[in-house]
């Protein structure tokens, strides 16, 4: 269990972390979400002692994180980072060794992880010879190769094609299922809500919301998604009492109903506007949770 407890960090006048506290339980894919510049990277670097904190502690299993703990952590920084001119297999083996693996184990694990992430055939290439997407897979291998108890991945999905996203999602889920801690950050809240079991959402260095995705998305006001043929703006719903248009997507209007608003009235208004092609309740999106929490 990883605990962020009251982290504070200023960069000059800018507040990067403002008494940030939350807990990452093991065995779950935990999403660390928030807009760009919210302080996610600073908090993740704090786990590895890469930022000096003004106040607060990061704890692992109840006590402050030590160098020994970090050996059993895996890390993928936001800006990535591999030796461009070094042979990939050597590089991953080297990083595994730095995390305390024996030489033979390190070589075996390197081969396994490169295969698993689909870059096994490039083991003898140099990193600079790979496409950016494949470099990212190698970077993931570097974070996972030593079978860490906790992985911290900063924006692991950015820059990946759909196959890459699937691969990473699968690996993260497997790792969590094996009882390990998996913390990853993303600024695209809605894209990752299916992947995470729990999330912490931050803004301006402060915690905005946290909990399981289930809790966060099922509570609160009800959401209705209505599609009326030929309608692209949802203007018909604009004047309805107790109804707010959350957004329109591909002709479907996402509506937030106030407490006590009757969905049947909304359906009647929709039928008056045209042929209703879709009408159904949906869960809150994480971006909505975020916006509502900010008020």
């Amino acid at each position, binding site marked *: 269990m990883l605990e962020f407890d009251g982290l504070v960090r200023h960069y000059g006048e800018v507040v990067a972390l403002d008494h940030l506290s939350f807990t990452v339980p093991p065995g779950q894919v935990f999403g660390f979400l928030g807009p760009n510049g919210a302080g996610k990277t600073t908090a993740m670097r704090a786990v590895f002692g*890469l930022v000096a904190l003004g106040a607060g502690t990061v704890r692992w299993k109840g006590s402050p994180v030590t160098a020994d703990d970090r050996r059993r*952590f895996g*890390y993928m920084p936001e800006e*990535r*980072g*591999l030796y461009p001119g070094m042979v990939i297999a050597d590089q991953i083996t080297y990083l595994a060794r*730095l995390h305390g693996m024996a*030489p033979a184990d390190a070589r075996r694990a390197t081969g396994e992880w490169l295969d698993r992430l689909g870059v096994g055939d490039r083991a*003898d290439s140099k990193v600079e010879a790979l496409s950016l997407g494949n470099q990212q897979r190698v970077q993931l291998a570097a974070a996972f190769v030593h079978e860490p108890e906790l992985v911290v991945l900063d924006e692991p999905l950015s820059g990946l094609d759909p196959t890459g996203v699937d691969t990473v999602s699968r690996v993260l889920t497997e790792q969590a299922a094996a009882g390990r801690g998996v913390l990853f950050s993303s600024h695209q809240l809605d894209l990752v809500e299916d992947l995470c079991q729990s999330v912490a959402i931050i803004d301006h260095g402060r915690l905005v919301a946290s909990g399981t995705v289930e809790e966060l998305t099922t509570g609160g006001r009800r959401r209705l998604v209505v599609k009326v043929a030929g309608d692209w703006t949802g203007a018909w719903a604009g004047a309805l009492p107790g109804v707010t248009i959350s957004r329109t997507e591909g002709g479907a209007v996402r509506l937030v109903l106030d407490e006590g608003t009757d969905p049947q009235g909304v359906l009647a208004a929709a039928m008056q506007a045209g042929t209703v092609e879709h009408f159904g309740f949906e869960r809150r999106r994480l971006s909505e949770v975020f916006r509502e929490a900010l008020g």
Partner: protein
Amino acid sequence: MTWLYVAVAAVLVALRLWWRRRARARAAGPSAETGGPDAAGRRRLGRLGAALDSFGGDVGLVARREVRERVRGRTFRIGTAVILLAVAAAVTIPVLRRGNHVHDRVGVVGTLSAPLRATVVAAGPAVGTTLTLVDEPSQAAATRDLRSGRVAIVLIGARRLLVDQALDPTDTSTTALLARVLSSTISLQAGLEAAGLAPARAAQLAHPRPLAVHSLQPPKHNQTARSTAIYGLILTYVLLTTYGTWLLMGVVEEKSSRVVEVLLSTLRPEELLAGKVIGIGAVAMLQAALIVGVALGLGAALGSDLLHGAAALSVVGSLLWVVLGYAFYCWVWAAAGSLADRQEQVQSLAFPLQLPILFGYIVSFTALGNGAASPLVRVLAFVPPTAPFAMPVLVATGQTTWWQFSLSAVLMLVATVGVARVASAVYGRAILRTGGRQHLRQVLATEAL
């Protein structure tokens, strides 16, 4: 001389073939993993690495990576080959030149008595050569031979000496020395003969047996110690600047590629810095050992005077100062690297670091050329940034004592500890700081990270 060309050509051909084999192995692609020479090399290195595995913990791991990557790199291999060729040439050519000069010809126009001829021939060894006399049919033929260099000097009877170029009083070439010796002895002997002495008696008087010279002390440090020290200076200069630049570039590479953040998630900055410095230092010392080994081996095989007399002391002194010099400068170079943000900044960071090295090198080199150290060099020998150059000069010219040498070395070690502390503080603070080139004052003024 011919065999030298053959040897150089053979080395070049061998290098060329080796490269071609390597290139082909690379082109063969992934199969190299199972059977290529590259893979075999890696396995060999791997075995060596495995043998050293328990050594040095994380610092050892970092250092071993540096050694492996550098030694495997093209820069190191080509650089070493070029330096070794230069060393081979530097050792071989003086030996060959010495061989060339053992024989000179003296042209004789007209008649010369047998005792005078004997006197001329006997003058050879005194100036370090053996002489043969060539009878010239005419003065014109003799002039021609002189111009073409077939003969070094022409004797016209016992009356006149002819050389190609007018002699400068400071000229110490074999021809000049020979001309001076011959002009006085032949003139004296001819004069004695003319005064009525029997030719044999005249020859005896003109060529007296030299007095034995005894000395109170053994010879001072000789010319060979100086030339050995010159090679030592060049080696120190080349190694310090080359490996300093490697360190600088290595640190910049880690910082600009951001791999440093991955490394520092499990290593402390001091461990990474120490591993780098030790690894690159080990490569530097390996290269130095290779160069010195080849020079000494070749020198011994060819009978070069590279190691005569005090030169051995000079070699040991130079090597010790290469190590001390690297230990002092490596921290500075690495810390400078941590201030950069991009590879393009390497040049501007390296320049100020090269200045004290260049200064020490030039001043010391000049002193060696003069054969004696100026007061400036004597002072610089105790100033850590220049001591690696100035102290070996004092050793070679015999102007130092063992306690002065030790004092300078101790000062150097103390300074190295100080420099290492400041440098690792700078490194630790600057290495994770991005967003443009960092400035030293600003880095030192802020807290860590």
